[in-house]
């Protein structure tokens, strides 16, 4: 889904050329450069199309109900619906925006930092247009690509709301989400994921997003999704301030059952997120799938072991939090690592996140209600940087491929340089998202106010913001 998946692409190409190319192409001297739509139509495999549609459904599943339940179970009963509502409506609003201008500004050329308006309202997209994958001469229906990318845009701002759950007004938050995707998510996604495609780049080597061109590796969104949302969450909870009664009153999760269901469905859905990011269904897709599975398992285990050592008892909340930390950390690396290096990554990510969630937070005493920063930002950073290591072919990693030549060839891997590049990409994302998010939160707070009255907060947002109760038993 970005430069590191160039490798993915060509790994795929190497692995499944015979299968993925139409016969005439095989009989011919190899792949065709810059095919036209008619030719592309012959380069579509229905197995890929099916995989991308399934993956899109899985990513929606991650947002609703999974993320809603994972977060909602952790708040107090009186705020359950407010969290579910925030996630549900962010998905709905962003989906509409995506069709109107999001897809266009993210996935058309024009600049290194943002695309153009040529595909607003999906102009020019039809059942007869196709999107490139990471393999030469392998295409998928453009609508499948549009909807897959849409699900990413829908869930990312939803991740942020956990940081200031239980104390935010609904409409100002929606406004924030609209502005945030427009000036933070779309540009960052463009920088990391936009490029001309493997059959076209060689003729126009500059036609790519800024970070993509820089060579940053992010298979499924460590920077674009998790660091991006994680830092925005931290900024938000600092601007908004602590919950009434924070540190004094008991704020225990109202239903860890719902949190476990959410975490489990996140795990299941994440396969669409990570393995789907390969844009086709081949051996590399299977690798991304198994890496996602085992890194998560390892991180859950690691978190539980830490709790056993520190408190003498492992908790379910610890297990699922570890699992999510693992999912976040493997996201950028899922298409580059091996199952074994993925396990190591999971074992490393868990303690890092644990340290911020259970130690740093209580020391610094900021009220990141549901640990968006501690899990998503920290886990994302660990994963993004580690990607530079695990991707090294000398560790069995998939390395990277050079699409500036046609057909793409493997590039020579320099771990040190790659790690530097990864760190740069992380820094740029932190600054871009952190800075702009601060401006947005401050601005909205000054103009409309972000926070409900203390009375309303005490009574709970379900009744005061939405006029309902989650349970009437």
């Amino acid at each position, binding site marked *: 889904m970005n430069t590191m998946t160039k490798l993915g692409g060509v790994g795929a190409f190497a692995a499944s050329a015979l299968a993925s190319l139409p016969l005439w192409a095989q009989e011919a001297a190899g792949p065709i450069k810059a095919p036209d739509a008619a030719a592309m139509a012959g380069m579509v495999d229905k197995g890929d199309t099916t995989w991308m549609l399934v993956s899109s459904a899985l990513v929606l599943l991650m947002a609703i109900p999974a993320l809603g339940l994972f977060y909602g179970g952790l708040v107090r009963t009186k705020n359950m619906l407010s969290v579910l509502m925030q996630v549900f409506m962010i998905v709905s609003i962003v989906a509409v925006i995506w069709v109107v201008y999001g897809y266009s500004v993210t996935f058309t050329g024009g600049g290194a930092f943002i695309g153009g308006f040529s595909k607003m309202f999906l102009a020019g997209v039809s059942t007869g247009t196709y999107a490139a994958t990471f393999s030469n001469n392998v295409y998928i229906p453009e609508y499948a690509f549009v909807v897959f990318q849409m699900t990413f845009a829908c869930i990312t701002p939803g991740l942020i709301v956990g940081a200031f759950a239980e104390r935010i007004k609904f409409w100002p938050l929606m406004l924030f989400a609209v502005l945030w995707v427009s000036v933070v998510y779309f540009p960052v996604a463009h920088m990391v994921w936009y490029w001309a495609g493997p059959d076209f780049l060689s003729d126009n080597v500059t036609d790519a997003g800024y970070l993509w061109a820089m060579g940053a590796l992010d298979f499924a969104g460590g920077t674009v999704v998790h660091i991006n949302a994680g830092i925005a969450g931290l900024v938000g909870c600092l601007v908004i301030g602590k919950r009434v009664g924070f540190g004094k009153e*008991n704020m225990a999760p109202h239903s860890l059952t719902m949190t476990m269901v959410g975490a489990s469905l996140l795990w299941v859905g994440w396969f669409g997120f990570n393995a789907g990011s390969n844009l086709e269904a081949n051996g590399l897709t299977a690798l991304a799938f198994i890496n996602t599975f085992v890194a998560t398992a390892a991180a859950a285990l690691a978190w539980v072991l830490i709790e056993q050592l520190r408190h003498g008892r492992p*908790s379910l909340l610890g297990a699922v*939090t570890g699992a999510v930390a693992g999912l976040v950390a493997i996201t950028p690396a899922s298409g580059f690592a091996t199952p074994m290096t993925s396990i190591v990554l999971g074992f490393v990510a868990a303690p890092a996140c644990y340290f911020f969630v*259970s130690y740093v937070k*209580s020391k610094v005493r900021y009220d990141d209600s549901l640990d968006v920063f501690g899990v998503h930002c920290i886990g994302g950073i660990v994963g993004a940087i580690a990607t530079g290591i695990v991707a090294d072919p000398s560790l069995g990693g998939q390395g990277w491929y050079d699409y500036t030549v046609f057909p793409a060839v493997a590039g020579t891997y320099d771990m040190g340089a790659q790690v530097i590049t990864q760190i740069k990409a992380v820094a740029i994302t932190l600054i871009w998202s952190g800075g702009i998010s601060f401006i947005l939160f401050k601005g909205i707070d000054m103009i409309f106010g972000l926070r409900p009255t203390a009375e309303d907060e005490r009574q709970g947002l379900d009744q005061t913001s939405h006029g309902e109760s989650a349970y009437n038993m």
Partner: protein
Amino acid sequence: MKMIIAAIKPYKLDEVREALTTIGVRGMMVTEIKGFGTQSGHTEIYRGAEYAVNFVPKMRLEIVVADSMVDTVVDAITTTARTGKIGDGKIFVMDVEKALRVRTGELDDDAL
């Protein structure tokens, strides 16, 4: 008439109910409560945040009986609810001036 209020361990409820029925008690009101007393609660840790749960779940029984039955009832509860461990509970006796059965309007002892 007297109202006997007792706080007991939840899992003793059925036993106590049976004991009371056998000695002729025909009704009671039971409430799930949080008890606070010598018996200590427990602590829960969520992502490192510790919460002390100072209350212990108990069952609160309210039984209104004729004066004559008070001692029998108190004994019955004491013997069945007792485990000898801290937290067995308490029994309180209070005076009831009037009782009425909604269905029939019967009063006092007839209402029980």
